[in-house]
């Protein structure tokens, strides 16, 4: 069950040795790339039955206090503090449960989880347990939007195919998105459920009126991009960042090119874009860039489709630039 051979810290996260000088008010400051790292070989100790259960047997364990009867899952203790430290015993709990409360959804993740976003993390009370287990929650139908999983939503634990004895070996999806047989199956694997593939939306041919809307929106987008390039704060937002984005909307398509502090628009089709944006209405992107609503929110609310979820990072940068221009105007 061990994961395929990989490094504890992926090479892509490790910066090169380097330094540079920053001048502020004519004074030079030395800035160096640096890291603080420690490796561990750590036992899961008394928690081992729980993590071995996830890894080897696709089972979930809790612990039961014989005095008060409370079943805690996860079983993070061996003696019940509510009953003068009476010893608890390991018990198996169910693989279906309900959400204790509505789970948050992270769109802007920490640097280790950028590839995972957007994701939900909530607490599930599994059948047979009294306390809640922290889990990631997903939908099988694409990007997790608010309202899909709420307090009381019945969810099923799914086991990743490749497990290493960590809490991330499992996650939950709504029971309503599974078949009865899948819900009943213990140890259901991620590969045994149907994940809706990311399919690029098709756009219909624009009417004459839509062509006019496109022209108007394109004009505005060009103007905003020009302004972004003239705004120091906005340029800083994309310093060190390079992306070529193909934008497709009803009425036409164009490219947005981000190149280490510069942003430009080109009315062309890219041969190898880093990612594709599709918006039914060109106004969606124009509004976002002009700070009349976040582009991030348009992706979440499915007004704008992106071909790679990881590119939320670029979307955040575009939102940040829109705000920087707005701030600079004040």
């Amino acid at each position, binding site marked *: 069950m061990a994961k395929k051979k990989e490094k504890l810290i992926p090479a*892509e*996260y490790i*910066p090169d040795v380097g330094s540079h000088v920053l001048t*502020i008010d004519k*004074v030079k*400051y030395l*800035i160096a*790339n*640096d890291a*603080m790292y420690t490796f561990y070989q750590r036992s899961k100790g008394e*928690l081992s039955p729980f993590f071995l259960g996830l890894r080897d047997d696709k089972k979930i364990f809790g612990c039961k206090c014989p005095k008060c009867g409370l079943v805690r899952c*996860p079983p*993070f203790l061996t003696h019940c503090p509510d009953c003068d430290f009476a010893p608890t015993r390991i018990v198996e709990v169910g693989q279906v449960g309900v959400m*204790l*409360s*509505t*789970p*948050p*959804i992270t*769109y*802007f*993740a*920490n*640097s*280790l*989880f*950028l590839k995972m*976003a957007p*994701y939900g*993390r*909530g*607490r599930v009370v599994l059948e047979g347990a*009294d*306390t*809640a*287990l*922290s*889990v*990631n929650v997903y939908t099988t139908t694409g990007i997790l939007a*608010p309202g899909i999983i*709420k*307090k009381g939503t019945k969810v099923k634990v799914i086991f990743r195919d490749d497990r290493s004895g*960590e*809490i*991330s070996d499992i996650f939950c999806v709504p029971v309503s998105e599974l078949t009865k047989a899948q819900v009943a199956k213990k140890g259901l694997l991620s590969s045994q459920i149907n994940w809706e593939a990311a399919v690029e939306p098709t756009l219909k041919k624009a009417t004459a009126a839509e062509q006019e809307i496109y022209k108007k929106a394109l004009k505005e987008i060009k103007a905003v991009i020009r302004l972004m390039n003239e705004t120091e704060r906005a340029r800083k937002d994309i*310093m*060190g*960042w390079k992306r070529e984005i193909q934008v497709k909307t009803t009425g036409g398509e164009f490219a947005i090119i981000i190149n280490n502090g510069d942003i430009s628009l080109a009315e062309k089709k890219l041969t190898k874009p880093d990612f594709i944006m599709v918006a039914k209405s060109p106004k969606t992107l124009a509004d976002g860039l002009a*700070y*009349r609503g*976040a582009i*991030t*929110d348009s992706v*979440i609310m499915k007004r704008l489709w992106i071909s790679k979820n990881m590119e939320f990072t670029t979307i*955040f940068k575009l*939102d940040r630039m829109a*705000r920087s221009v*707005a*701030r600079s105007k*004040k």
Partner: protein
Amino acid sequence: MSKRVGIVGAAVTPFKAKWNEKTYYELAQMATREVVKDAKISIKDVDSVFYAIYNDIFERTCIPEHALHGLIGMQNKFGTRVSTGGATGAYTISAAHAYLAAGRFKTALVLGVEKCTDCFDFMSMSATPEVIKSIGWSADSFFEQRLGWTAADSYAEVVLAYMDEHPKDLKPEVTAKISSLLSQYVKTNKFAQRQHDQVTPQEVMNSRLVVYPFKELEICVYTEGAAALILAEEETAKAISKNTGKPIVWITGLGEANEHSFAGKNQKVMPRIMSDYIASHQAYKMSGIKNPRKSIDIVELHDAFVHQLEITMSEFDLVPRGNADALIDEGLMLPGGEYLVNPCGGLIYSGHAVGASNIMSAWSARNELIKRKKKTAIVHGTGSTIAQYTAVCILEHD
């Protein structure tokens, strides 16, 4: 009988998104230089120091205070550190108070410092994801870190659970108005990170979702800076006050509580911030406050998130639980309302230099009590996963 303890000096450095010009050594010394100047004493007159520093990773060293002790002039004197997440500053004030009230020392320096945006993510070429990661190491290492836990998503858990119970409260237009109001207050705080960042409620509503339900302009910002207080027992405080001509602001109440870090039956009650409730009510009791709605004039509340500000105000019994929107809808925190809330701009606009933040809040509360000739303020710190920790201080100006 414990001794009375008062604040006789306070200072902050500018709070900035990034201090390339200074290390945390210099920020700490800068705040110390300013606070002894404010109290018109020499550092030689200070008996003890209580360091408020949250995260070793930010300072890129374990026990980061060891390097500070000599350079702030406290060689061979008492020094200890408190680290309780976002509540670090308020807890540190509480610790210093306990030593002074017990008669161990006559004076104490409370010194908070944090340098967070040295953390840098080379993948996105920006600081924020790495700062969030560094905070992420504060999550439970067995059951949460690998799930992408962040401070924001853990507080969002509490907020969403509250909204499950009270779906008509914490309306987006109200949270937007609160954020906009704080952005107006910050205009007079020349030390604030976002002194000139005034936003309309519409701009708040339009800002992007970071962690549902939090929008970018409803979240505190990461900050580098330092803040310091001089506390003294009664007789010493009176002597210092006579010298400075500034009134003493007494610490008359303190309360602290830490909740369970796991949720469910007999554990954390997710829709509540019980630590806020317990700590504030302990502090009210200690200072003899029977009706906080009548007694509290100024609130300096740790607003990690606007939604949490509203919930905390309800846990303080300053607005009904389930109708925290009355803060705006009924004008309780609007100018001319019952309470002045976060006149410094809060952590959302002043900035959140974690260990220093609550000390900055106490600095602001002291200034406002004196300037506005008001009697009572409450200063608050919240921290750790799912708003687990709280420390609260009641300040009174006689």
